[in-house]
């Protein structure tokens, strides 16, 4: 266990110093982060912009802002922690450098999931947290609501990670799945607005087919104390199940791995 913590520290140090090598990328990343908030806030602006609109689908402006905050935070978590690692899986399978990961006496899933960080997008994390804090300050938040939101958000992050890992793992079979992550972004982008603002069929799709609701809307509801107990339980359970399933899927992929020819 301490070895894994030590490795996390080393991986983080290595990936940070590697990125300092390319300082010019920094500006681009900051602009990208600002662009993301801009788009998200514009969306809310359009929804609430018409005169006389106080709520959309039962959500007030600050509640919607809260959801947007969670969305940005999740964007940040994905671009800082998840995507940099997952996008390299396909590449590693294609070039055969996955060989080295599999030859190490270290859990390979841990290895591929923690090796890289994209610090350049850390701004998204801050923006997300800032939006959440701002929106929450205009809403009544209890301590219980806060703890619940934290747990639910963690579950949500686990779910997001599992979806990414499962998609990236298919690379072991279809080496060129670069567009698998594009597909995911397309799906995930919809969660930037509260789920209930969509017509019923789409809402059903989003809630049940793709668990995006769990990723952003549920933590927001928990924070404001409007969450039903059933949903509160569902998220951690789904996260646990997703983790076990993806783990099995990963192990199966590794077992079928035939590395790229010499």
């Amino acid at each position, binding site marked *: 266990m301490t070895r894994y913590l030590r*490795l996390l520290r080393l991986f983080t140090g*290595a990936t940070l110093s590697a990125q300092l090598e390319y300082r010019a990328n920094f500006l681009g990343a900051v602009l990208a982060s600002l662009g993301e908030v801009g788009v998200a806030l514009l969306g809310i602006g359009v929804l609430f912009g018409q005169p006389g609109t106080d709520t959309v689908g039962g959500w007030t402006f600050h509640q919607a802002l809260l959801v947007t905050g969670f969305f940005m935070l999740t964007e940040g978590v994905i671009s800082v922690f998840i995507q940099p690692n997952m996008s390299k899986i396909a590449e590693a399978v294609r070039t055969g450098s996955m060989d080295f990961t599999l030859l190490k006496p270290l859990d390979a899933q841990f290895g591929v999931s923690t090796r890289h960080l994209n610090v350049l997008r850390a701004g998204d994390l801050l923006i997300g947290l800032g939006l959440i804090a701002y929106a929450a300050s205009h809403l009544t938040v209890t301590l219980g609501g806060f703890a619940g939101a934290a747990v639910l958000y963690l579950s949500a992050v686990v779910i997001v990670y599992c979806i990414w890992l499962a998609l990236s793992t298919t690379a072991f079979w279809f080496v060129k799945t670069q567009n698998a992550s594009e597909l995911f972004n397309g799906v995930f982008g919809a969660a930037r607005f509260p789920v209930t603002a969509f017509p019923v069929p789409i809402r059903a799709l989003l809630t049940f087919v793709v668990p995006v609701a769990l990723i952003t809307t549920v933590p927001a509801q928990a924070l404001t104390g409007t969450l039903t107990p059933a949903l509160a339980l569902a998220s951690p359970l789904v996260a646990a199940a997703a983790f076990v399933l993806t783990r099995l899927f990963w192990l199966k992929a590794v077992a079928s791995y035939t590395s790229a020819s010499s």
Partner: protein
Amino acid sequence: MTTLPPDAAVHVRDLRKSYTIHEKEPGFLGSLRAFVRRQSREVEAVRGVSFDLAPGEVVGFLGPNGAGKTTTLKMLSGLLHPSGGEVRVAGFEPRRRQSEFLRRITLVMGQKQQLIWDLPALDSFLVNQAIYEIPDPQYRATMHEFTEVLGLSGILKKQVRKLSLGERMKCELAAALLHRPQVLFLDEPTIGLDVNMQESVRAFIRDYNERYGATVILTSHYMADVTALARRILVIDRGQLVFDGDLARLVERAGGGKTVRLQLRRPVTAAALAAYGEGVKVDGLSAELTVPRAEVSSRAARLLADLDVADLTVEDPPIEAVMAELFGGKEAVRG
């Protein structure tokens, strides 16, 4: 079931591997067609290979391109699951990739690199130290030793992407052996290096083998690697072992003959020499010809008696020529 020699470091019996390959015509339409209806075909890359290696043994693993060398090494290191047969390395079954097994082996691939591209090699070493849980004193001792033998000082703190190919390969080797593995699988570790650099890589491998008694399997297309390091040679061709024995026997087995080199005092025509052997080459006062192995002494005696010879030497043909003879130009065709 064959019984396992109790002290074998590597034990391989009837090892097989076939790949399923999906064929695809070039272009987008080809991709689409392949996506809809997959054409697949089995390729037997390794077809029943057996051998045993004693601990501390160094063997050269030779064969033309596509013979199955890399495939075999990948099965021995646990990266590929064999389609059939039995493998034991250091007492473990490689395909299970147990941590205890992985700590005892290493696979070096001259064509691939594990070092972190944007950082100095030292950072990659520290990561490996943590992964293999190498205690600090051992890490320092190993680093000290490797730095000396490989001449690493001065390059460890440069970003890997700024190193020359040879410098990078030295660092790759150091990274791969930092945990002091007992069994080394080296797949073309000297590929693309100049003669000096090849020599220092060889010296390092020899030194490591002597110091730690490690078992080494080495593939290379540079015969000097193999002749300098290995006494025993395995030759694989189209997935099957066609030779297992020492170098001298390989040369003998290839048939061919011995090369006789002459230094003459008076010029001779090639036609005049054709009576003594084949493949006659004349260049001014020096000449070269090939004579059958069994008749070396009688032919040499005749040459010395008939011609005005200043010097005569008899040599084994270069191993490249032996391989060319064994595989009769297949190399070019099989790619």
